[in-house]
């Protein structure tokens, strides 16, 4: 128990954070380098104004036409991503552990709210899961990797939820929670979860090309 805990919160945690930050940096540099090598002219397209214009339109729910087409999916997508990113950064237990290790802390969510946000992530993940099963057009483009990625993201939230409430095997789910969180961190730069770092750039490029070159909107 103690040996496993020491491993998970020591060497494994270090490896996960290094791979996460290093991997993200690597993906960004690789992206810029590829553009530079293959389609350098893209840099001359880029415009801060049109990039931001497009990003704002896509980051506000229902502001882009696409967001208005499927309202339920849109709400689920926004709620999912918002809670997915904010909960782990501000849940009290993470900040307390951070302070124990680094004598450094920041604002934390009330536990009830963090619990509700975790449920939002789990419910939305369930919705995406069912959507992939029943909606023919989504099912058609679904491969094994989609199921794996969805599980990697859902696992830390489900186990964290069970651990917080101390339901079922408390020790197992707490340890699994730490482990699955580390797996998710490592998966971000090296799977399609990398849309977390890449998509703002794709959006900025689309916005710039449509706005500056084609004088059109991309939302």
């Amino acid at each position, binding site marked *: 128990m*103690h*040996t496993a*805990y*020491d491993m998970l919160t020591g060497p494994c945690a270090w490896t996960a954070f290094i791979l996460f930050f290093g991997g993200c940096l690597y993906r960004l540099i690789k992206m810029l380098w590829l553009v530079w090598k293959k389609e350098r002219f893209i840099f001359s397209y880029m415009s801060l104004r049109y990039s931001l214009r497009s990003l704002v339109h896509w980051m506000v729910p229902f502001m882009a036409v696409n967001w208005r087409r499927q309202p339920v999916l849109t709400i689920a997508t926004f709620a999912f991503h918002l809670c997915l990113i904010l909960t782990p950064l501000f849940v*009290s*237990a993470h900040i*307390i552990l951070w*302070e*124990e290790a680094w004598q450094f802390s920041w604002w934390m969510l009330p*536990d009830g709210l963090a619990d509700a946000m975790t449920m939002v992530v789990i419910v939305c993940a369930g919705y995406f899961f069912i959507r992939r099963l029943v909606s023919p057009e989504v099912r058609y483009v679904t491969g094994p990797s989609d199921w794996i990625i969805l599980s990697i993201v859902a696992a830390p939230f489900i186990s964290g939820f069970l*651990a917080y*409430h*101390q339901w079922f095997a*408390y*020790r197992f789910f*707490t*340890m699994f929670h730490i482990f699955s969180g580390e797996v998710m961190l490592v998966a971000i730069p090296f799977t399609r979860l990398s849309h977390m770092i890449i998509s703002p750039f794709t959006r900025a490029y689309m916005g710039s090309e449509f706005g500056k070159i084609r004088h059109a909107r991309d939302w």
Partner: protein
Amino acid sequence: MKKSIGSILILCTIFLFGWVSVHSQEEMEVVDNSVFDQPRRTSSLFMHDDHNESAGIEECHVCHHVYEDGELLEDESSEDSSCSECHEIDASGDMPGLMMAYHLNCKGCHLKEKKGPVLCGECHHK
């Protein structure tokens, strides 16, 4: 005669109360968390005397310590004051805040000894 029996009884009661309040750590099962306003967790399990016996801690000052000018005084202890009398809710300088004082003291030793609870719910049991 009746009067002296009465005073003996009163003396016994006072003695009993004094004894109970001095030795109340024997009955302690959890660390009182009422100093925290709106505690987030259940109070931590801690059977004071059983714990220290099975963990083999003999010195009181391992937990009930006294510092002078930032130096730990090896042969003095502070079991007559609660942790919260010195440790405020918020940290100040080298002095950890109350929650951190507990976590660093309790969990710190458990991690070092590789014995005793380290996961939140093992201490803050629901």
